[in-house]
């Protein structure tokens, strides 16, 4: 098991190295410069600025310096956000993003599992049909549309929740819903399909023949077996939440990473773009490893092969 983990961690580092390399060179190909008012600057001023940020060095040198800095936890200095270190920018903003992402994930999976299970148990009835239609809507409505609708009707018209900004828990509710409805719909659809299969399986027939109640059968046998394939979705969800957060954080003025990322792209703030890209990649790679570990925990058949590895 330890050997397996070491191997996985090695591949994670390799992946991150490749991401860093590719992003670094792609970014250099982006049109424009980091200076918003370049027209008004003299060539001399630009030269001084370039020297200050290390932009006058050859690209391969910049690249090596960046990698070296990263090893020490130094992600460079932001061009845009009052010359703060990128690592500080990230650490001061990651809390809001992480809270929003985790809440959206929990919200989506929890209610998705409930809706999907109810649909599967009542398959081919109006309950099932309703849930399918709602899932399709939930999946196809873009989250920014939903965000704006929620903001307008629930926050502005009804005044139940704050319109925007980041304060207590009540500020998180609408963005969580806006971000979590996609995963919810996806989960519901996924669980529904999986559980219909499971409910038709022989071991459910055997569970019935034991005299277990309907609830007992679903809770003790069907649920766990339908949850296993869901684990594979955690990775894609993470991606969806990361990208979704960029839009949602902007709409709700949440001081998170996503909001910062959008700004840094618009202003060619290279160190911040790099930093956030590396953060998202590291997060994703970690989630993928976590997924496999969770898989092993809830599916005993996989646990065995993990031991053999």
């Amino acid at each position, binding site marked *: 098991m330890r050997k397996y983990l070491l191997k996985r961690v090695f591949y994670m580092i390799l992946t991150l190295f490749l991401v860093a390399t590719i992003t670094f060179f792609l970014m250099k190909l982006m049109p424009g410069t980091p200076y918003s008012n370049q027209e008004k600057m003299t060539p001399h001023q630009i030269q001084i600025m370039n020297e200050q940020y290390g932009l006058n060095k050859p690209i391969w040198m910049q690249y090596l310096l960046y990698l070296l800095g990263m090893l020490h936890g130094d992600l460079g200095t932001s061009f845009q956000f009052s010359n703060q270190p990128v690592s500080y920018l990230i650490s001061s903003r990651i809390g809001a993003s992480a809270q929003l992402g985790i809440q959206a994930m929990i919200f989506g999976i929890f209610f998705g599992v409930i809706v999907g299970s109810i649909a599967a148990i009542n398959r081919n009835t109006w309950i099932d049909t309703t849930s399918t239609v709602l899932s399709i809507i939930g999946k196809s409505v873009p989250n920014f549309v939903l965000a704006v609708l929620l903001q307008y009707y629930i926050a502005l018209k009804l005044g139940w929740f704050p319109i925007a900004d980041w304060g207590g828990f009540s500020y998180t509710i609408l963005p969580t819903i806006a971000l979590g409805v996609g995963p919810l719909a996806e989960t519901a659809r996924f669980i529904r399909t999986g559980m219909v299969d499971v409910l038709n399986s*022989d071991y459910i*027939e055997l569970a019935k023949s034991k*005299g*277990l109640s309907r609830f007992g059968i679903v809770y003790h046998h069907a649920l766990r*077996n339908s949850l296993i394939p869901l684990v594979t979705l955690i990775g894609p969800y993470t991606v969806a939440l990361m990208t979704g957060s960029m839009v949602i954080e902007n709409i709700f003025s949440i001081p998170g990473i996503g909001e910062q990322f959008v700004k840094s792209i618009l202003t060619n703030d290279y160190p911040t773009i790099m930093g956030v890209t590396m953060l998202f990649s590291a997060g994703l790679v970690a989630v993928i490893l976590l997924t496999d570990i969770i898989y092993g925990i809830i599916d005993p*058949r996989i646990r065995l092969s993990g031991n053999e590895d």
Partner: protein
Amino acid sequence: MAERILDVKNLEINFHTYAGDVKAIRDVSFHLNKGETLAIVGESGSGKSVTTKSLMGLLANNAEVMGGSIMYHGKDILKNSEKQMQNIRGKEIAMIFQDPMTSLDPTMKIGQQIAEPLIKHKKIEKKKAWAQALDILKLVGITNAEERIKDYPHQFSGGQRQRIVIAIALVCYPEILIADEPTTALDVTIQAQILQLMKELQSKIETSIIFITHDLGVVAGMADRVAVMYAGQIVEYGTVDEIFYNPQHPYTWGLLNSMPTLTSTTLEAIPGTPPDLLDPPKGDAFAARNPYAMKIDVEQKPPFFKVSDTHYAATWLLHPDAPKVTPPKEIVRRHQLFAKMTAHESV
């Protein structure tokens, strides 16, 4: 006379499908005596599984019981609520399934799977239930049971898994055990072990068994009585000796003829296919495949004719006015053996 613990009368079950109503069970009556093993044999699709599922109240959603009764302890099971059926299932009537590779929950320790019926029906706590599960696991012959009780299904072989399925079925000491082709999915040596185990356990646990199979070969050593099913009906029933050595229905002849024996080297499968149960024939359902069929077989459903107190067959050949026919050679041989056996007994 033996005590009847289960009495099925005139059972009729339809399945509603898009193509129409499948008349899967058509006027089936049989009973189960206390402590005996009743085998139900018949080709695929004859209605064996549907019959037993109706005993458990586990029919598919599109099934409808059109008539009949299943008397158990003086009560008609068919009138029970789902809740009442839950209290019978696993406790008084238990079931062993065909495919041990798929009938255990892959994500639950086998100890818990065996303990579940105890926790449900005997209302005992988990620890005690596991202790009893361990006892039954030893009883069904799992070696090193103390360790293995914590394992998951994929860690066991097919034969071991069927032993575990049997343990689950027997853990509450049910009065009736239904075994629906319990050995079909296993290879021959394991098959024999499982059958042997079932026989041993039957005497230890004092349960009555309904043994479903399409293989007459395994019936001889297992059953006390046999019911032969064809196209949703029982066409002949009697003691094992009566069915094996004095069969009367041409379908039973066909089944016995298609069974490998020491003397016959060629297998003769019954030609043709069973009728479409969406629109079953009005006469003897077997008529179309029956080389001995008469005109009346096509027109009118034969009633049961009594052969002995325990032996009945639904074929017009037993009508007093029917012409005498000569059964296949193998059946004639069996009839001669039967004549010798009975002559021996009466001496």
